[in-house]
């Protein structure tokens, strides 16, 4: 006891280290579970930070648009050409819609229950994000009350962002696919028979390998989710930047540049499986 009294500071430091270590181990073993403290932090993020975040984003967007007037003009011209091209495509797609409707009628007549398109979705704003540390983890303003559950898939217009790590009442913590240890199964968009598995490469990008080592995957191929595992089929993941045969592991390894810019995520869409009924649209 005398030793403890004489070394008060050291005992206090060791005590704090021990408490922090216990918190880390508990949080590691209970990953993804939401505690009362976690709920409070989430409430703070979604309630207090949302208006400030919105204001900050609006100001930043305003300033950026002033300085990028030339770029916007050029983008406008490109988009006009794209619209003309898309209008042509709409005409041909309208023809196929008629065929699709006929097939749907047949599906209902035969009482066939498909698995595709059974997801509901809810849109959300990113209310808190911190780029000062390594992880791309952020908080969104929807939670269990809106039908968002742990492991729900998160995406935006560009493609796959990640999944819900933990969820509270009106908030959820999202972990980006580039931070993931867990593997994501993919298909090559050019040839959907080519399958592979990828995960975060520890450098802010993705890497993986092809299931068939003879796969003819090439640089520039676009990758989409395969539908096997957590992520539903058809979500854009990114573009292959390198495909090399690795002699030591006897696999065809691929490096992927994600289609989503993880540094400028503002709005997301959360997909919910049919079991977890959602109230939002």
């Amino acid at each position: 006891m005398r030793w403890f009294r004489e070394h008060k500071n050291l005992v206090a430091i060791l005590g704090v280290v021990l408490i922090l270590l216990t918190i880390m181990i508990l949080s590691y073993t209970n990953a993804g579970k939401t505690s009362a403290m976690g709920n409070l932090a989430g409430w703070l993020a979604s309630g207090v930070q949302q208006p400030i975040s919105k204001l900050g984003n609006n100001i930043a967007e305003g300033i950026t648009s002033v300085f990028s007037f030339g770029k916007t003009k050029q983008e406008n011209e490109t988009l006009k050409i794209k619209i003309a091209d898309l209008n042509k495509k709409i005409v041909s797609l309208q023809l196929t819609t008629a065929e699709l409707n006929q097939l749907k009628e047949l599906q209902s007549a035969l009482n066939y229950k498909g698995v595709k398109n059974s997801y509901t979705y809810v849109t959300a704003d990113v209310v808190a994000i911190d780029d000062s540390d390594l992880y791309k983890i952020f908080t969104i303003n929807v939670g269990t009350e809106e039908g968002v559950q742990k492991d729900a898939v998160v995406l935006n217009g560009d493609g796959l962002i990640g999944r819900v790590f933990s969820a509270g009442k009106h908030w959820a913590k999202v972990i980006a696919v580039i931070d993931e240890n867990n593997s994501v199964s993919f298909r090559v968009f050019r040839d959907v028979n080519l399958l592979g598995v990828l995960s975060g490469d520890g450098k802010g990008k993705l890497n993986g390998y092809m299931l068939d080592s003879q796969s003819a995957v090439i640089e520039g191929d676009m990758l989409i989710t395969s539908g096997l595992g957590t992520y539903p089929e058809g979500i854009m993941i990114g573009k292959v930047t390198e495909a090399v045969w690795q002699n030591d592991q006897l696999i065809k390894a691929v490096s992927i540049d994600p289609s989503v810019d993880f540094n400028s995520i503002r709005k997301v869409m959360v997909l919910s499986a049919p079991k977890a009924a959602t109230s939002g649209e």
Partner: protein
Amino acid sequence: VKYRYSFLAFLIGFILQSTVLHNIQLFGVTPNLILILVIAFSFLFEEKHGLVFGILFGVLQDMLFSPIIGISSAAYFGVALMASIARKYLYRDNFLSVISIAAIGTLGFNLIYWGLSSIFGGTYDVVYFLLRQPVALIYNTLILAFLNWFLIRKVIRYRGFKYM
């Protein structure tokens, strides 16, 4: 400085960091205001505000932005201890001391953070981690230098005065 003032400073820092600062990111890196405040309060003032609020806001930060809770707290705790010890050996009114402690603190924080993340299953590459450091160093050092020069030195003239 009273605890309520330092708490307010940390709260404002935390809210700004998680809402607005991502708009001024450079190569995917933003300044770490909590770290800057931890270093400032531990190095420039006698009290243990940096230590206490570093742990508290570190937990809050981890709850929202990290897969493992406690990593940031431990890293802030380590930096606060280091800055408190440095206060005894460095002249705190010297501008160069402040800049040096900001740079060492940033590197120390990120090393502890990366090390603990790796122990708990983090996959981040050491080269990628090191490449982020120059930007983080410049950002944090500049902000701490600004805080020290324009705010702390001008507003709080008698830092040792405990009734402020």
